[in-house]
């Protein structure tokens, strides 16, 4: 911890609170781990004694980010990432809450494992951590987990991680049962048979590289199936990572029907496209794969309009051995928790999206969907707050990243804007100097 919990006054800030659709120049006072007030002209006079006063000089003050999809290797893959290292990376990226994924070893499919993760996080992590639990035992897609007990133990949602539940009957029952507990089911929508041996987006570019493609329909067909099952079961459903306009069409229809269907997109799919694979860059090998430029642009518009609810990092640390391989043999995944806001600012600077809707998708919406605190600057909310310099130019050197693995697609990228302070529960856990 860089500092204690003395009160903090952030002055001369551009305060953005997506939970109340506020965007104004003003001050924010934090004390006792909660937000006291956010308004114009609090002034140094009216604050408690000993308050740390920070002149933000026009920088953005916003709710801390909630990363709804991040892989942390604990338990079982601590060489890739621990809760401690993930939380350091998160803090440096402005993420004050990590939603970790259950595809660990063993999988998070029992209440005791949820408890283990929560205790490890309490002892080692500098940001909040909430695990998702497995939807099916051992992520096998066959039998549902103890959804009620897992939720009571602290699981905020249920997912089989990067695996799809191919058996529609299993999916239907899980959705139906989960609805009794108002549990959110998060699903990776990719039909593994249609994916087949595919390793990147299907199309001319893959064909030229001699790589087999993954069709967009592998995703959209699965999403379509799920939406029909939600109509049948009435559960709360969230598509984990959608990538193309065809899926947006399905999502729009589901929302128009009033179904409880929401979706995320990863920051990678919003800021990169298939051309970034270039000459077989394995750091750009992702699941689902990076799509074409028009798909990327459609995703960004859907974030701006709110059709896609959440932007997440899909943080997936992979060590050198799994990535220093021919493209088809390399394991998919990229780290991103530390760079997701910075990468998102690219879109803001390019005029593709405004900052408030981007922040809403990275903080307010995930808090609402998961039913957790945070994502708001409303007085009384937990003091999970970030200060962002949206303009400072810098070049990313992956050696500087705090994650244990360095598989970032943004190595040597020229970036503009970064998090300069991260406050979790009133404590400053990261400061960029």
């Amino acid at each position, binding site marked *: 911890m860089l500092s204690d919990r003395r009160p903090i006054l952030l002055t001369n800030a551009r305060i953005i609170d997506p939970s109340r659709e506020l965007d104004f120049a003003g001050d924010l006072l934090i004390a006792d781990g909660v937000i006291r007030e956010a308004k114009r002209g609090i002034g140094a006079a009216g604050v408690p004694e000993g308050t740390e006063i920070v002149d933000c000089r026009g920088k953005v003050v916003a709710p801390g980010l909630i990363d709804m999809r991040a892989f942390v290797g604990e338990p079982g893959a601590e060489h890739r990432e621990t809760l401690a290292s993930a939380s350091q990376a998160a803090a440096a990226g402005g993420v004050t809450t990590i939603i970790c994924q259950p595809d660990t070893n063993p999988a998070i499919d029992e209440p005791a494992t949820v408890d283990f993760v929560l205790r490890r996080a309490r002892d080692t992590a500098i940001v909040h951590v909430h695990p998702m639990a497995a939807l099916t035992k051992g992520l096998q897609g066959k039998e549902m987990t103890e959804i009620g007990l897992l939720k009571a133990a602290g699981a905020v949602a249920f997912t089989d991680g990067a695996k799809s539940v191919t058996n529609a009957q299993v999916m239907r029952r899980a959705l139906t049962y989960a609805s009794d507990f108002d549990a959110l089911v998060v699903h990776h929508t990719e039909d593994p048979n249609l994916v087949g041996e595919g390793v990147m987006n*299907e*199309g*001319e*570019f*893959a*064909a*030229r*590289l*001699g*790589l*087999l*493609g993954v069709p967009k329909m592998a995703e959209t067909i699965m999403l379509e199936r799920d939406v029909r099952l939600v109509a049948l079961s009435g559960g709360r459903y969230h598509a984990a990572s959608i990538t193309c306009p065809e899926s947006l069409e399905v999502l729009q229809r589901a929302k128009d029907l009033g179904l409880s269907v929401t979706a995320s997109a990863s920051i990678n799919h919003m800021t990169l496209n298939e051309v970034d694979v270039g*000459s*077989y860059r394995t750091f750009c090998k992702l699941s689902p794969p990076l799509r074409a430029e028009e798909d990327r642009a459609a995703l960004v518009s859907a974030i701006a309009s709110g059709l896609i609810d959440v932007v997440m990092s899909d943080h997936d640390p992979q060590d050198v*051995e799994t990535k*220093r*391989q*021919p*493209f*088809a*043999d390399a394991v998919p995944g990229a780290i991103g928790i530390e760079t997701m806001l910075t990468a998102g600012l690219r879109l803001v600077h390019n005029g593709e999206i405004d900052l408030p809707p981007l922040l809403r998708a990275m903080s307010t919406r995930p808090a609402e969907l998961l039913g957790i605190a945070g994502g708001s600057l409303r007085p009384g909310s937990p003091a999970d707050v970030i200060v962002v310099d949206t303009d400072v130019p810098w070049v990313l050197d992956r050696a500087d990243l705090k994650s244990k693995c360095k598989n970032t697609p943004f190595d040597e990228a020229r970036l503009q804007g970064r998090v300069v302070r991260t406050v979790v529960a009133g404590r400053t856990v990261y400061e960029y100097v």
Partner: protein
Amino acid sequence: MNIAQKSSFVLSHRHLLGIEGLSRDEIIGLLDLAEEFVDLNRQIEKKRTSLRGRTQINLFFEVSTRTQASFELAGKRLGADVMNMSVGSSSMRKGETLIDTAITLNAMHPDILVVRHHASGAVELLARKVDGSVINAGDGAHEHPTQALLDALTIRRNKGRIEGLTVTICGDILHSRVARSNIILLNALGARVRVVAPSTLLPPGVERFGVEVFRDMREGLSDADIIMMLRLQRERMNGSFVPSSQEFFHYFGLSEKKLAYAKPDALVMHPGPMNRGVEIDSSVADGAQSLIREQVEMGVAVRMAVLEALSRNLPNA
């Protein structure tokens, strides 16, 4: 008869990883140089000394008889010390990564590495880790540049030109590195390229490769000057991509009847090894219009030309 070397063509790249990236002039330079080696290879005395002192390692992660033999002969005729390593006897089987293998071999100071690998892009990945020249002897479904060069040499010697010819490539385009390299090369030299295949064996987006796409042999072969047949892997003809080898042969196999759709002087090529009765009928493969044996001969000459042209660019110190 001693043949004096006339071409002083130098390939100003460190590696030959694909046809993509070669200019038209570079392709022609290689073909002209190869012509000289064709003559040399027909002599009793076939030995040159231009690669004397150089070490060439043929690193084959995928089994190959003819390509490996062709590169071995080419290197030896130019005076290089040639070593063959194939996956069956290498530590790749013990879990060593491609990059570790590259680093290990590099420490032995090979001047030239000839590499074949089952994964697209693997040869390029390896090339980044070594100091010598790397020649791609086939990577996945990506490229097989020396095959395209030897095909071009064979065509040019028989037709006197490549520009303006209609070349039809038939069969498993989806999985074929030979098709990709040939499409790029033939386009660069001004041929009209067609592909014919069932839709399951066509890569999505192939129509943007600069080819005309056909699903019917009669249309695709009509007025063709050159017919290139591709090998169909056994595991792809049992219902996964085509229903059976019989059905494939019925619609896409090159029989004498289908050959008659092409120009009367059309010539037939195949990169080998052939599946007789699957993609090509024996009577066509062994017939008067077949260039298949000549392709093998041209293979050695083209590989000598590539080795020679790359080695002229190697450091001499």
